[in-house]
């Protein structure tokens, strides 16, 4: 673990009690390696290490006996600072329905997350509607229908339609008529560099004026997370992120990267395949996980 590695670094100190800048550099090298192994983005790590260095060296005297704890404490605090606080939930519209648009790369967990969000919101007393606006993937509409049926949450779909914008728009009209106060739009997985597909989701946004645009990102995403998040944000103006598959053993450094670069909160985390496997984001738990 990082703590053990730092203990090794500082154990070699003589008993003079004071830690030199070289010792700090060596400790920071271990922190850098830990963060890179955790998939934190290269540039984010660079900025992070220089901030930690400033604080570690800026401290009056880094006592050799407590150097490890002190550096870990600084790193932990800086990580939590970066991750923001986990308080943000869904920001509801003043006048219903609240529209939530889920977007992201292929296979990140959008459809499953749509159902999870539906269940979450219903448990809070809302009346959600799920919208099957993925007109591309084979049996995507069926997948959402099955999930909705299992939870007894209504699913809006237009069978055979290849028009995601029309589906989203008509779903919204139907929700208003039927008194659903939250509309959750599931969209097709897409590449941030696919102009046609990014155009499609932009048009879905224009047709429905979402209150929340959430990028659903796989927690095991590596260095590419920054580029993906930046591009989706540039084209859609995301309101936040949902990080999925955190029930695995991925360290989840993408969480740091996207938050640092885009500045929007991670609102929820997916922690399993079942519909109840959704949790609010806990920055302190995430920081501990990233540090390993």
């Amino acid at each position, binding site marked *: 673990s990082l703590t053990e590695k730092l203990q090794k670094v500082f154990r070699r100190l003589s008993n003079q009690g004071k830690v030199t800048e070289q010792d700090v550099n060596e400790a920071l090298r271990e922190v850098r*390696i830990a963060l*890179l*192994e*955790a*998939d934190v*983005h*290269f540039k984010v790590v660079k900025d992070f290490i220089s901030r930690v260095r400033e604080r570690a060296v800026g401290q009056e005297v880094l006592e050799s006996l407590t150097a490890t704890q002190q550096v870990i404490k600084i790193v932990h605090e800086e990580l939590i600072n970066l991750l923001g606080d986990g308080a943000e939930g869904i920001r509801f519209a003043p006048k219903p329905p609240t529209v939530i648009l889920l977007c992201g*790369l*292929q*296979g*990140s*967990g959008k459809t499953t997350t749509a159902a999870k969000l539906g269940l979450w919101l219903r448990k809070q007393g809302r009346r959600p509607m799920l919208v099957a606006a993925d007109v*591309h*993937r*084979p*049996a*995507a509409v*069926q*997948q959402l*229908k*099955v*999930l909705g049926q*299992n939870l007894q949450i209504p699913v809006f779909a237009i069978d055979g339609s290849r028009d995601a914008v029309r589906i989203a728009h008509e779903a919204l009209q139907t929700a208003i008529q039927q008194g659903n106060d939250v509309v959750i739009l599931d969209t097709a997985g897409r*590449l*941030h*560099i696919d102009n046609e597909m990014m155009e499609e989701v932009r048009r879905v946004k224009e047709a429905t004026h979402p209150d929340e645009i959430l990028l659903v990102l*796989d927690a*095991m*995403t*590596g*260095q*590419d*997370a920054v*580029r*993906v998040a930046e591009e989706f944000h540039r084209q859609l103006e995301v309101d936040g992120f949902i990080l999925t*598959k955190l*029930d*695995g*053993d*991925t*360290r989840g*450094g*993408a969480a740091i990267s996207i938050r640092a670069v885009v500045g929007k909160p991670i609102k929820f985390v997916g922690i399993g*395949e079942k519909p109840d496997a959704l949790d609010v984001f806990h920055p302190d738990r995430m920081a501990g996980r990233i540090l390993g």
Partner: protein
Amino acid sequence: LTGRGRVDEELFEELEEVLLTADINVHTTMQVLDDLRRAVREQRLKEPSEVKSVLKESLLASLQSGGDSALKVSPVPPTVYLFVGVNGVGKTTSIAKLAYRLRQQGKSVILAAGDTFRAAAIDQLEVWAQRVGATLIKHREGADPSAVIYDAIAAARNRGVDYVLADTAGRLHTRSNLMEELKKVYRVAEKALGRPPDEVLLVLDATTGQNAIRQAQEFVQAVNVTGIVLAKLDGTARGGAVITIHDELKVPIKLVGVGEKPADIEDFDAEEFITALLG
């Protein structure tokens, strides 16, 4: 990469950034750059282009050594390929693409709907079977996946079908009960065939970072993975984690997924892969 004029420490920092941002493991990167520094000294390299060329050669060498990147074909049909991997990486779609290619080659193909768990997983494979002209063997949702694979192999034998491509549910390598289920699928396939499946293909998502190495370690241990399918390489991720996987686990990369259409699959080409990785 690098319009720099000289071979200096700044060049190495630039190269380090290229390698790390390609998701190459940090320890592998440090090793590669140490070897490169030694090569620069020993060969007295003066031009950045020479350094880059040596780097490319060393990465290529590590990727080209070891196992055969061609797909194994059984002398006695059916040839059976089992697809495994964590959730959402592209297993089902990769099966569809390979089935399409095989059908184009005039081969007969059975798809085994071994994901009996996820909503509409069977439906998804059914659509693909129709599109590519393959036969689907399926049971009810919730059925034992081993039974589906067993039936698919039996059907292939009875009907003289050339290939069985078996789909399995996505599963995190950290779920021991799901890994046990996968081991059973493998054993049942082996028993039905009288030999191990001709390929056990681990599908990895090119956007995955260091966790790909963990996935490979666990799946190799559980079910004797014979090859890797690296999907979603049409994105901006460069898939560098496979370099460490290949180094440490000796599993060859056999196929690359480059899109969502049936034709979007290619044989792994190490030269192309490393060239793209180095930018």
